[in-house]
């Protein structure tokens, strides 16, 4: 009897195909899990914090879903102003808080615009509250630096 044509051959082929399928499936699951971990570690931001320390600087912290934290500190000497900007995104107007940095070559100019809360995208009323707090500290900073 021909082994390839008989029931044994069919069974072998079936087992081989199922094994191959399970390997492909396990590889797909593994890749998906890796992708998910990568997404949680590098993309998914859980929390964003803005800390303004008078006469020291502004610190922005992003906490990722995996627990990783990314911090950016901008010295107060480099900060020109904190403003609420508006942008047209798709079919709507969105508002975002941003830090204007002084140009080291031309002090009256602006070298860079650093957006804040890029992931959270808070509503305008929340942004206004944060903006007012920032302006209070910046105003105090300007007063103390200009006083003789």
């Amino acid at each position, binding site marked *: 009897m021909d082994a390839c044509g008989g029931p044994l051959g069919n069974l072998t082929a079936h087992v081989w195909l199922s094994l191959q399928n399970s390997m492909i499936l396990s590889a797909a699951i593994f890749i998906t899990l890796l992708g998910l971990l990568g997404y949680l570690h590098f993309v998914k931001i859980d929390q964003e914090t803005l*800390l303004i320390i*008078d*006469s*020291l600087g502004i610190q922005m912290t992003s906490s990722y879903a995996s627990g990783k934290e990314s*911090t*950016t500190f901008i*010295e107060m*000497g480099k900060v020109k102003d904190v403003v609420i900007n508006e942008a047209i995104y798709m079919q709507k107007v969105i508002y975002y808080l941003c830090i204007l940095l002084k140009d080291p070559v031309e002090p009256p100019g602006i070298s860079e615009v650093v957006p804040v809360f890029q992931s959270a995208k808070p509503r305008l009323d929340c942004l206004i509250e944060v903006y007012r707090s920032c302006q209070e500290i910046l105003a105090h900073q300007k007063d103390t*630096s200009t006083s*003789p």
Partner: protein
Amino acid sequence: MLLKAFFPTCCSSVDSGLLVGRWVPEQSSAVVLAVLHFPFIPAQVKELLVQVQRASRVGMAVLGTWCHSQQEPEEPLGHFLEGLGTIFPHDPWLQLCRERGSKSWSCKVSCQQAPAALGVPCEDQVMLIFYDQRKVLLSRLHPSAVLPDHQAGDAPASTRGLAAVFDTVARSKELFRSNQFNEGPVRLSHWQSEGVEASILVELAKWASGPVCLLLACLLSLVSAASTCRVFRLWPLSFIGSKLSTCEQLRHRLEHLTLVFSTQKAESPAQLMRKANMLVSVLLDVALGLSLLSWLHGKNRIGQLADALVPVADHVAKELQHLLQWLMGAPAGLKMNRALDQVLGRFFLYHIHLWISYIHLMSPFIECILWHVGLSACLGLTVALSILSDIIALLTFHIYCFYVYGARLYCLKIYGLSSLWRLFRGKKWNVLRQRVDSCSYDLDQLFIGTLLFTILLFLLPTTALYYLVFTLLRLLVVTVQGLIHLLVELINSLPLYSLGLRLCRPYRLAAGVKFCILEHEAGRPLRLLMQINPLPYTRVVHTYRLPSCGCHPKHSWGSLCRKLFFGELIYPWRQRGDKQD
């Protein structure tokens, strides 16, 4: 303006004494570097400060007092601590106090002159920033944006803002030399007060590095002198040297070794880092090369490779013959120009016949060649890989020849067709003005032009098919060589020392700082902890990447596709000047 007192964490539990450091008036910051303990003779303290100032060029001063007691300082002690301000006059005078065993801190600022005149803050406007002195001393603060023209660290670091703190600590090494084992007149507390960090092995290595570097530098100068000999500048040798990847790699490695073992001291931290990266790169390369060498010489693998190489080359040649026979028929059911098809097919078949003869002629020497190639791996894996790339280039020389013939023929057809197409439309290419102009042709010219255009157009599919097949084969070889070059480039240019430093000592490569709030209560000074924000891996690679040997592709995808379409020859690993069409 708020007064910022930068206080080292290592001093937060030491005995009472004086705060020694630097006052930065522009930022109204006090950078505390050490605590000088009681008892002391004021004259000796002043002498020490002058010595340190002379050595470090940092304005040292006694900034105030540090009190670490069981409870709040009593009235007489308080008066005594305030009275020290008259011996060491400094405005403002800091009075830091911490109760033993508790977390409560107090900070007072007193001024001899009117505070308003100096711009010094009131008593409650003080911010205590704790910093790890060891980490700040050993770290290198990288600017937020490195200019593309400058190597990192070439430009002097800005001493504004927090960079001033880093700069102050880095330049105060002289102050940190004294420790508890010194029989000096004053007793200081700082990060190294328990004893200076040292290693016998490091000291021995430092002691031995001088003569070793001198010896190796002499040897390398001899090698470089031999390589610049006039014999190597003669036509065939210089031409071969410019074409072989091995020569390029050896030149590159020689430059690396010359720089690493030069007796000149590194002038800047960036140069030191570059030297260290090069040394680690060379060591890793040699280690990988030696492991490859041991693998090749174990179990007679070279013999096995030599035995397998000729049959593989034969098999490739046979497959090419089959491919040509397929092209000489009706490939994929396409009807070719029979005469041209036969001419091209026979021409290429003759080449393959020559190639097989050449391979069989070389077969007795292949094992010997491979043995020497294996031996070259002790110079490094990159050298072995470069030799492998050159061997692949030599073994696939027939494919390269086919590609060149096909490309030249196709290019001729394309340019001929484009020129005749312009003639067909009554136009011509103006070479001087680099544009297409109108032109009136004779009837004979138009007739012959149209005739030639028709002939070339009908012969184009046959030529294009041969060109397409051999270009694909050439691209396959180029891809394999490209992967080898990529691996060589990776070993050559990856800043392994910097990456290792980033992995094991992240604070050494600082992108900036971050702050944690330790205490924020009304009536008490705000206490922050300053931590170092390490440089991201991508920026470490970008900043400290070693210069490559210029073997990377010079074409963009667009220009490559354009060249392939018009039948221009591609030399992906040669610079424009090296190109020999």
